[in-house]
């Protein structure tokens, strides 16, 4: 994921390959991808095969050319995620000013990041907590479909180690201009400082058993339904909403469609930033 290299033009995979992937993943690996949005999925397939240096025809002829690790990498690539720190700064400002302070006296704030393939949103929240709420006690659970992606995140892997956008976003949210305390060099690569990841647990899920049994005070699920079709998005919403504690917070992506019927038991903290409270 760190070397996505999506700056080159890429053709969209045809439906034959897309259907083959869905079929193989379901049958052989028990991974249910059938609910991914068609056009984005087909482009991600083409990109994934390019990165893994495998031809789509080879895959159709004999899908067993993929190793277990390549399957895992493929799953991670198929699902894009927020790739800059403090993406949509207004959301983080609302979290800073209107939400996190409500949890200061709570003994243990339970936070969940479902369906994760990149770490940037997790790191952003950890930075925000460290900057403005250093006494807040919390536990973060991260779930995602790709073990490869989760391992990268647990090692502080960044999509863009020297992102000017991330720095600019950080300045807007914190008023500070130096991110260096949050990063370190590991094997010549800049990573998020893993000292800040001590309160984070990671769990891979396969097939549709992808949700924790716990209930959460804050669920950070920004832009998770973009890759899902309507049916899968509805299923996702139902599970997410169910797993929210009373007075808990859900944070969606700014241009993400949120079914209004599902939010009957929620009120909007910020409608423009799509932040809701149960």
């Amino acid at each position, binding site marked *: 994921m760190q070397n996505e290299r999506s*700056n080159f033009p890429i053709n*969209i995979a045809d439906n034959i390959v897309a259907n083959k992937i869905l079929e193989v993943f379901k049958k052989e690996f028990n991974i249910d991808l059938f609910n991914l*949005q068609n056009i*984005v999925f087909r482009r991600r397939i083409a990109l994934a095969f390019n990165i893994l240096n495998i031809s789509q025809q080879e895959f159709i002829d004999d899908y067993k050319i993929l190793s277990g690790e390549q399957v895992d990498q493929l799953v991670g690539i198929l699902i894009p995620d927020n790739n800059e720190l403090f993406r949509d700064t207004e959301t983080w400002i609302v979290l800073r000013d209107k939400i996190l302070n409500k949890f200061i006296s709570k003994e243990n704030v339970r936070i969940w990041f479902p369906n994760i393939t990149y770490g940037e949103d997790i790191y952003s929240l950890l930075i925000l907590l460290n900057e403005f709420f250093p006494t807040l006690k919390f536990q973060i659970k991260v779930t995602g479909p790709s073990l490869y992606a989760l391992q990268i995140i647990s090692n502080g892997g960044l999509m863009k180690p020297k992102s000017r*956008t991330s720095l600019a976003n950080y300045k807007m949210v914190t008023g500070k201009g130096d991110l260096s305390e949050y990063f370190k060099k590991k094997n010549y690569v800049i990573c998020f400082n893993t000292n800040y990841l001590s309160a984070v647990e990671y769990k891979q899920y396969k097939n549709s058993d992808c949700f924790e049994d716990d209930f959460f005070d804050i669920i950070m699920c920004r832009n998770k339904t*973009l890759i899902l079709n309507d049916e899968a998005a509805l299923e996702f919403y139902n599970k997410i909403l169910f797993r929210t504690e009373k007075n808990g917070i859900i944070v969606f992506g*700014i241009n993400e469609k949120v079914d209004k019927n599902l939010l009957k038991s929620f009120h909007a903290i910020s409608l423009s930033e799509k932040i809701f409270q149960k």
Partner: protein
Amino acid sequence: MLKKAIVIGGSAGSYKIVLKILSFLPKNPGVPIFICLHRLRSARKGFAETLHARSSYQVIEPEDKEKIELNKIYVAPANYHMYIDSNNTIVLSVEDEINHSRPSIDITFQSAAEAYGENLMGIILSGANHDGAFGMLKIKEHGGLTIVQDPGECEISVMPLSCIENNSADKVQSVTEIIHSIQNFISIND
């Protein structure tokens, strides 16, 4: 395949051109228009509203999975890629930048080409990188009509020149000519 549509892409120097184009569009022309302009990620408010004020169309920044309607102008939201899906839906994505841009014109144009085929008009305006050149090639390959703004008229000509260089431009036109082409395209009955 969907019915007619128009896709417009641009970057530096294109916003005022888009304003001019929109001000000359007829009422209820019966096609959707998709606009993908490079914009600051933080510039979320005011962009679509300003375009809306200069047009008789409704101009919106779509949400993910929004159904496409005729007589609406869809502007790619800041920091999202905007795909046009052949099931008559807009699909947003947070994928990595393409040509250092998100939204990327290539993504919108390429997906629109698949969805609309020969019933699509693609227009590239002034801009400082080659985003859109690949997308225009896809529009042309699918039988659509491709027009670029005359580089001599552009504030920055890199974008239309990229389309001329990869042979994806059917026509090179001034802004006035582009407006006439759009009016003709809209007026042709299905």
